[in-house]
């Protein structure tokens, strides 16, 4: 029945059951409406803030509203230093250094995510494929999984010192255990029918893993990856604030140390926008690469 419903929805090109979502819309309108609501939501938030400022409830030194902290772009951007020297102001053009700072942080997140995804999926599959390996490693992994990534920060610095490596390591570690455990549980939940089909069709164990189990678990793992994306962003900022000496996390720390609330909110805006763009990008990849997953909006904003 569920399959029939999915088929029906796929044919109609609607993401939700009509009864819940109201009248199904077509084409451009369908895309624009959620965007409109997104903008409206943001506008409300900003409006409340601005009104608080205009009424004198929000101290512009502590809670500067958007029109203040976004106003002086150039003077804000000078704090975004692409070099690893703490406290130095930038000599290159403001926009360029700002972009480079964002790119540096983004690259750390991306390397950590890719590394973490590949390693944890490999690990999870290996644990289920080689029983001995599973027996030896799984208890430890389950024990290490609940440790907050923040607790790994000293370890990251002990192991990798200062630079890119500890930040990447932090993203990696925040993902690795969760995703390994998740990979294993996905493997255990692969449809028995699909496994039976593979067996009846004469697939070997290796073939079953490669051609049935892997494609069956990838969609949900990608979902887990997306859910952990925001965690990765939090962790990389902490790592940058303490262990790297550049990037958005460093700017946040600088804002804290110099009591520069405008800079703090400005950076938070950048982090929010970048993180959001990341999620959108991942969702696009998901739709292109993992086309067989019904687009049910799980964990998404639509």
């Amino acid at each position, binding site marked *: *029945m569920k*399959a*029939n419903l*999915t*088929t029906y929805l*796929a*044919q109609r090109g609607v993401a939700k059951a009509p009864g819940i979502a109201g009248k199904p819309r077509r084409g451009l309108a369908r895309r624009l409406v959620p965007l409109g609501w997104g903008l409206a939501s943001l506008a409300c938030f900003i409006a409340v803030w601005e009104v608080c400022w205009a009424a004198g409830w929000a101290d512009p030194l502590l809670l500067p509203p958007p029109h203040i902290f976004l106003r002086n772009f150039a003077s804000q951007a000078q704090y975004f230093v692409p070099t690893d020297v703490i406290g130095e102001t930038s000599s290159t053009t403001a926009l360029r250094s700002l972009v480079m700072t964002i790119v540096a942080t983004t690259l750390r997140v991306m390397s950590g995510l890719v590394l973490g995804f590949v390693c944890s999926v490999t690990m999870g599959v290996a644990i289920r494929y080689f029983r001995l390996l599973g027996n030896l490693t799984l208890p430890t992994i389950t024990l290490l999984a609940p440790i907050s990534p923040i607790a790994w920060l000293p370890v990251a610095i002990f192991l990798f010192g200062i630079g890119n490596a500890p930040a990447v390591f932090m993203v990696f570690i925040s993902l690795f255990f969760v995703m390994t455990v998740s990979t294993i549980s996905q493997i255990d939940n692969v449809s028995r*029918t*699909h496994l*039976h*089909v*593979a*067996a*009846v*069709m*004469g*697939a*070997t164990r290796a*073939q079953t893993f490669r*051609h*049935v189990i892997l*494609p*069956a678990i990838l969609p949900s793992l990608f979902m887990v990856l997306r859910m952990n994306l925001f965690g990765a962003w939090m962790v990389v900022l902490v790592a940058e604030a303490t262990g790297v000496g550049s990037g958005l996390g460093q700017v946040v720390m600088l804002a804290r140390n110099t009591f520069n609330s405008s800079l703090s909110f400005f950076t938070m805006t950048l982090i929010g926008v970048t993180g959001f763009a990341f999620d959108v990008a991942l969702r696009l990849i998901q739709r292109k690469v*993992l*086309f*067989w997953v*019904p687009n049910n909006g799980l964990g998404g904003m639509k």
Partner: protein
Amino acid sequence: MSLTEQPVMQPPLATCTGVGKTWQTDGAPFVALRDIDLDIARREFVVFLGPSGCGKSTLLYLMAGLEQVSEGRIVCGGAEVTAPGTDRGLVFQETSLFPWLSVGENVTFGLKMQHMPKEARRRVAQEILERVGLSEAIDKRPDQLSGGMRQRVAVGRALALKPEILLLDEPFAALDVQTRSKMQEFLTQVWQQSNVSMVFVTHDIDEAVSLADRIVVFTARPGRIKTIIPVDLPRPRETRNKAFHDLTDHLTDLMRDEVDRAFAEQERVR
């Protein structure tokens, strides 16, 4: 046609001798099947009919080699069944197509596992899909097909490995009545145009009479063969005549006791 020219004494394709299956659930043995003796001839269409939970699907899985017998032995094509093999195709009740593969790739999944090169697989996929009347669908995705079309693809996928026997586990149970009768016609045609034996599990009496050469009626759990009813109605089978109704009435009587017993058991478990 095959009935009149049936050669005198051809050895059966598959034989079950004293087959029993006992599950161990929390220490308590659960007897699913007991004392099954059954021969299946080449090109024969056998239907397993029984109330739900009577173990008819279990016997099918034992024949497929996905489960191991607890007692007795199953021989298929001269070899004892201990594991799945490509001489026995299996079609499931639920959607068993891989959603990440196109229809054509689904059909030739087994051949890919046997390392057949890609171009050759594509040709086989075309040929098979033509046989099941879906040649247009080769590049479609399974979720773009209707339930009936998907089950036709599943039958095609099982046929692609050229099995000697096709085992079908309530393949049309999830379909609506109209689609189901179309699918029965379709399956009969596929069977007549091929050399496979069919073993078809169902709890639907009309379906059993529409399809079978012989109907194996199961008792409620533990599943035993209650009786075997030969069906010699001419094909294509007309469902709206006296002979058909007499047979379904007879089977309904046979089944009633078993259904009552199965029901009583379910109530007790609850």
